[in-house]
């Protein structure tokens, strides 16, 4: 109900919605709700749940609101109170609840913010080891799935809505005979995604006990099969492995994207970043978060498709996926790993790597990690474990634990068995229990969808009417994780309790609930099931204390204490670990390529194909959105004469016309656009799975307004599953690529790829150096290297002091800053007499004189008028940023940013308030010399903001605490501010980008942020709603705001802790300490914008020996 205020600046948009009271009055809501609460709701209503808010309110529907448009404010709006207000709820005050966001079975602990019963924002749970407060972009976007207008809203039979009872009874009729006895003869198969959830596993186990003839198959198209099998091979038992990157001095990744993919990557990003955040002076109490330059870790990556991990690497070896094994063998052989198979032949570049790499690994015995990628075959994993064992890493940086998954088995093989059974008419009843969509994701040679048709009774539980639902007769709509109770395990096995924040919007059910319902179990409600399971386990594990207390505390924290998978104390290699190694890598024919299938970085295996945020957020590294492409190297593109055409527009931003290619593999082919990706090795093609879904959803995945894909279908991207076989799920050789005459428009927000520009007159290179970068060796000799500005302005020294919070010219011994006075012109910092380094915390005015015509000491801040004197500021450590895009989605979620669609992105109109710029160093023709940098760019909140002085109506102005305020309701849309913003971080609503009509999406909006209408400029505000909320809470208590009390959405989401935000006026603030670092610099600070957002230069730690070796 209450909070009014939601949309700004809308003159009269359709369905203006100010609060739930109005929202509930809308006819569309009536209609939607009529479908959403079926007649048998009573049976399922959960009397225990504390969060049935929406049901309470949903019943409270009143007369249609006065929808007129009158200039008079009075009586325009309604106000609808509760009839009985829930306890613990203060209207208007958001609440946080701990829950768990599942992905491919693994759960990440999250905290979800709820406004009046509506979950609005997902943040990481600092208490959960898989999160530590960070989240992935997928976790951030999961809340949008809840409000997806295309979710399955009702149980169906052959597509016709039926009641939930009817569907449940239909299953029961298959399972039980007339007397209520389980039918033992019926051949029963249960298919689900990977399961780590102890409660669900328990429920499945009970089911299997009840029906001993039943079989349970798990299938994950992009799961941990290779990891699991490799671990089993290495240690001779089912086990899981996790890593401690904080302790690792040297990391070798064998095609492993541990920073961007797989369970635990959020946590790994954080640990890894801790060894990359180089500091001149380590802040007190920040042990383990920062390092001195000499303690910086080193990352070697040998991989095919450039990944986030590869982008963060100090040395990256582009190599075919199939050659990784040979490379690993060579490393093992050189290291002298006992029993390692013989090394094959390696490409030249790879061969050069071996000696320096091995030497480096041996240097730090026991403090290194070799990690193999999910897509590498088990043999590579076994090799990696053997090397770790050899180097003494097991138990120090690499931990072998009991398995995390409820039943670790070969999922691809198990599916193949099931399909074979189905094809042989050996299955009577198939229950598909959500989390998996085999009709779309199964290997194409299995023909899963065809085999399913042979099963007489087919039942599907799923959140959407997807491809698998289409092959099944019966369907029940699955509840979202924010709607139902459950649990799940993180990468290290720690259990998170999945707590709902809202009653199921469409009365959906979880897998455990459905299993319970169809088997006539005692508990049919998710809460009862989970609680009962944990009551039993509490007793079984003989945990201390009272269960009720344990339960309350666990639910509150969201984490079950001490539930991590137990570590294997002294793991030993099994005897035959090296068996089953792949034969030597086949040589590629002249026109043959290696094809690589990878899960999409944002859509994963396609399950998020209807999530607008994940479709639109540019994929890390490639910066393409809304599509997939065949990624090839520059040499391959040249060989095939592939076009990447900007046409007469010269369009390097947002709009690119590329060739369409036909990709043929094992006799099957698809058409898709091709993309030249710097850093991709020659001879290989990478395609992302998860695109081209034909039953994704009408609003996003199959929205006809976005145009057809390269094959002419109304889907987003091309379906690479159509090429993927059971035998080669990750990569295989023999793919063919043929150029067609077609062209395709790709939305790539950043095709422009270098920081430098070549002067055509004399061939010199102009380096704008938006990312200041260097090595730790450089840093050791001169930590101030980032201060060098690329302009010839004589005021360089002065400008670098004018960056708020900057510690200026305090380092006489380095001399960098002062020297420039003579190098480029007169030194202007004569007025700055203090050398104590705290200059930046004071008022900056006296430094401005040489740079401004005005006398700065005037009425703007008369003495003492600044009250508590807060100065909000942000610092971003470019060494830590992995380019994962989590901040972009978090910002979109927090600030109600619209999804504009592919068409508008191609016109350069994406609406991200924070974007991630990706720069390459090197040339695209030498993939192994390419180095990648990421730079998140939010509004820099310049103290001398160029945008402000050009706004004719003062719609953007500075607040006293230094925010560059943007007042949407004052904006008239001249767009001059955007022109004058050197960072181009302002975003304009060129059209009515907001979805004003879809009712369910409105529930997910943040009520504390105006929803912008068309014709209005918008931009990052440092999450001013959070600042003001924090201020109000602190000032109500008459105390200062604590450092870290106000956190921006991007900061909270960042898995690697690259962003810090706080009050520069607080001398103890972390942001102040970051900014006092010598590597701190302001982007384009030479324009004297005095940005409040600054960057810490990106540092790499290359191995000089390897550098030299590669030069030879």
């Amino acid at each position, binding site marked *: 109900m*209450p909070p009014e205020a939601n949309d700004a600046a809308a003159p009269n948009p359709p369905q203006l919605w100010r609060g739930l009271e109005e929202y509930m009055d809308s006819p569309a809501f009536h209609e939607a709700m009529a479908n959403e609460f079926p007649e048998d709701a009573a049976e399922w209503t959960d009397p225990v749940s504390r969060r049935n808010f929406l049901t309470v309110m949903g019943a409270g529907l009143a007369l249609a609101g006065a929808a007129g448009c009158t200039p008079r404010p009075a009586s325009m709006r309604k106000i609808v*109170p509760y009839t009985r207000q829930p306890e613990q709820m203060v209207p208007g005050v958001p609440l946080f609840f701990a829950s768990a966001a599942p992905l491919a079975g693994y759960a990440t602990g999250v905290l979800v913010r709820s406004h009046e019963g509506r979950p609005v924002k997902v943040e990481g749970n600092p208490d959960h080891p898989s999160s530590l407060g960070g989240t992935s972009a997928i976790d951030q976007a999961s809340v949008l799935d809840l409000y997806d207008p295309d979710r399955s809203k009702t149980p169906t039979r052959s597509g016709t809505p039926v009641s939930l009872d009817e569907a449940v009874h239909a299953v029961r009729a298959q399972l039980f005979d007339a007397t209520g006895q389980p039918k033992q003869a019926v051949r029963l198969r249960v298919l689900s995604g990977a399961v780590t959830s102890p409660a669900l596993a328990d429920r499945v186990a009970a089911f299997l006990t009840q029906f001993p003839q039943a079989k349970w198959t798990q299938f994950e198209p992009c799961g941990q099969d290779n990891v699991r099998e490799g671990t089993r091979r290495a240690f001779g038992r089912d086990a899981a492995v996790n890593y401690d990157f904080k302790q690792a001095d040297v990391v070798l990744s064998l095609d492993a994207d541990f920073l961007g993919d797989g369970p635990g990557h959020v946590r790994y990003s954080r640990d890894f970043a801790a060894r990359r955040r180089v500091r001149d002076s380590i802040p007190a109490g920040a042990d383990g978060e920062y390092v001195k330059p000499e303690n910086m870790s080193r990352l070697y990556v040998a991989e095919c498709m450039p990944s986030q991990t590869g982008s963060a690497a100090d040395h990256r070896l582009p190599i075919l996926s199939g050659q990784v094994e040979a490379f690993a063998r060579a490393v093992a052989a050189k290291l002298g790993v006992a029993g390692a198979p013989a090394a094959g032949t390696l490409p030249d570049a790879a061969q050069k790597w071996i000696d320096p790499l091995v030497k480096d690994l041996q240097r730090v015995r026991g403090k290194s990690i070799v990690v193999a990628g999910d897509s590498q075959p088990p043999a590579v994993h076994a090799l990696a474990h053997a090397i770790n064992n050899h180097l003494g890493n097991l138990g120090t940086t690499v931990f072998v634990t009991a398995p995390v998954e409820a039943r670790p088995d070969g999922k691809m093989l198990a599916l193949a068995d099931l399909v074979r059974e189905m094809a042989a008419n050996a299955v009577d009843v198939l229950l598909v229990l959500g989390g998996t969509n085999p009709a779309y994701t199964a290997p194409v040679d299995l023909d899963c969808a065809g085999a399913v048709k042979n099963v007489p009774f087919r039942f599907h539980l799923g959140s959407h009417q997807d491809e698998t639902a289409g092959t099944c007769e019966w369907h029940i709509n699955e509840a979202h994780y924010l709607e139902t109770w459950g649990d799940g395990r993180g990468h290290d096995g720690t259990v998170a309790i999945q707590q709902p924040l809202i009653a199921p919007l469409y009365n959906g059910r979880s897998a455990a609930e459905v299993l319970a319902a169809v088997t006539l179990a005692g508990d049919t409600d998710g809460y009862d099931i989970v609680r009962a399971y944990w009551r039993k386990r509490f007793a079984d594990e003989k945990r201390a204390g009272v269960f009720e207390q344990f339960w309350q505390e666990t639910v509150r924290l969201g984490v079950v204490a001490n539930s991590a998978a137990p570590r294997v104390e002294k793991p030993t290699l099994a005897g035959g670990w090296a068996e089953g190694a792949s034969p030597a890598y086949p040589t590629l024919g002249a026109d043959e390529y290696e094809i690589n299938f990878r899960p999409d970085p944002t859509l994963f295996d396609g399950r998020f194909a209807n999530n607008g945020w994940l479709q639109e957020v540019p994929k890390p590294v490639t910066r393409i959105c809304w599509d997939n492409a065949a990624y090839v190297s520059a040499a391959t593109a040249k060989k095939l004469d592939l076009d990447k055409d900007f046409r007469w527009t010269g369009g390097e931003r947002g709009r690119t016309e590329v060739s369409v290619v036909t990709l043929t593999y094992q006799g099957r082919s698809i058409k898709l656009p091709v993309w030249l990706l710097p850093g991709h090795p020659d001879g290989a093609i990478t395609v992302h799975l998860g695109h081209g879904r034909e039953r994704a959803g009408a609003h996003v995945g199959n929205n006809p307004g976005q145009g057809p894909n390269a094959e002419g279908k109304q889907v987003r991207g091309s379906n690479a599953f159509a090429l993927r076989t059971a035998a080669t799920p990750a990569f295989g050789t023999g793919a063919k690529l043929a150029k067609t005459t077609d062209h395709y428009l790709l939305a790539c927000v950043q095709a422009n790829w270098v920081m430098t520009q070549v002067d055509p007159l004399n061939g010199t290179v102009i380096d704008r150096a938006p990312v200041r970068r260097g090595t730790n060796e450089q840093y050791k000799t001169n930590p101030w290297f980032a201060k060098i500005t690329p302009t010839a302005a004589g005021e360089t020294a002065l400008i670098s002091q004018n960056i708020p919070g900057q510690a200026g010219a305090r380092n006489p011994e380095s001399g960098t800053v002062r020297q420039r006075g003579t190098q480029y012109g007169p030194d202007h910092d004569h007025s700055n007499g203090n050398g104590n380094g705290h200059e930046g915390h004071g008022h900056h005015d006296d430094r401005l004189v040489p740079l401004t015509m005005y006398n700065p000491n005037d009425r703007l801040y008369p003495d003492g008028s600044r*009250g508590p004197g807060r100065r909000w500021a942000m610092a971003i450590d470019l060494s830590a940023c992995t380019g994962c895009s989590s901040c972009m989605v978090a910002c979109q979620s927090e600030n109600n940013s619209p999804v504009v669609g592919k068409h508008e992105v191609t016109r350069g109109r994406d609406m991200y308030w924070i974007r991630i710029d990706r720069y390459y160093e090197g040339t695209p023709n030498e993939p192994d010399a390419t180095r990648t940098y990421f730079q998140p760019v939010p509004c820099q909140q310049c103290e001398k903001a160029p945008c402000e002085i050009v706004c004719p109506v003062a719609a953007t102005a500075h607040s006293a605490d230094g925010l560059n305020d943007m007042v*949407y309701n004052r904006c008239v849309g001249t767009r001059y501010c955007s022109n004058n913003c050197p960072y181009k971080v302002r975003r304009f609503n060129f059209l009515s980008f907001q979805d004003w009509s879809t009712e369910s999406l409105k529930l997910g909006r943040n009520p504390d942020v105006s929803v912008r209408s068309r014709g209005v400029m918008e931009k990052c505000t440092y999450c*001013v709603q959070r600042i003001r909320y924090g201020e109000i809470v602190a000032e109500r208590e*008459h105390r200062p705001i604590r450092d870290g009390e106000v956190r921006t959405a991007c900061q909270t989401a960042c898995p690697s802790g690259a962003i810090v935000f706080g009050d520069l006026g607080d001398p103890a603030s972390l942001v102040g300490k970051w900014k006092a670092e010598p590597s701190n610099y302001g982007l384009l600070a030479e324009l004297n914008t005095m940005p409040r957002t600054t960057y810490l230069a990106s540092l790499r730690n290359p191995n000089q020996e390897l550098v030299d070796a590669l030069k030879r």
Partner: protein
Amino acid sequence: MPQIFPKAVNPLTRFLVLLLPMGFGATGVGLAAFYRSSYATGKEEVVPQPVAFSHAHHVGQLGIHCLYCHTSVEDSHFANIPPTATCINCHQEMWHGADMLQPVRDSFQKDKPIVWNRVHNVPHYAYFNHSIHVAKGVGCQSCHGNIDNMNLTFQSSTLLMEWCINCHRNPQEQLRPQSEIFSMTWAPGRPVNGKAQVWVREDLPNWGKNPDGTDTAHASMIGQPRPTAQRELGLKLKELYDIRDGVTMTSCSMCHR
């Protein structure tokens, strides 16, 4: 050439020429007056309600405290409109058969909220927070007027931006001690219960207590007479409650975001 225009035209044309600036001026003044009028702002306009709830009766006569219904005014941006259950607390005992209360009983029995008409309509892009105003010494009366005299509730202020801004620039004109926030009769210098006003502990930030439970320096004020002039009192309170300066308080993002 004959005369084109009759003589009478001369004064007429001159008058018309003079009318031009006068007309502009009058239109401007008229528009300015219109936008500030009760008609345009809804000030003092009684809003009909589904149940004829009388603040005059409940507050003025019965003396029910504001917080009894508006429970979250100290904790939230939203002061809360009481749930039907709050009405029923009393009205299951008294007036439980009155026709007037039929909608209330219906609401409670059928679990259907009463849909009130909003009286104070702040534009949706202005984010007003009750709790901070109450915490910083702005009394209910300052914005809502003498609500204890209102039968049907009406808006007693214009709620125009200039009205907000005026107080944000000069808060001292409206501030009152914490203990008098909910009072409808308080005025600076007016005796309370026949005695001259003195500072009480409740007036002090955090009740004059440090986190460790000791008294703050402010505690010495307790028992001292309060200034009797609003200006003097306001300035004292502004300092006491750490109210920031006008430039800070009129920053755009204070209210718009």
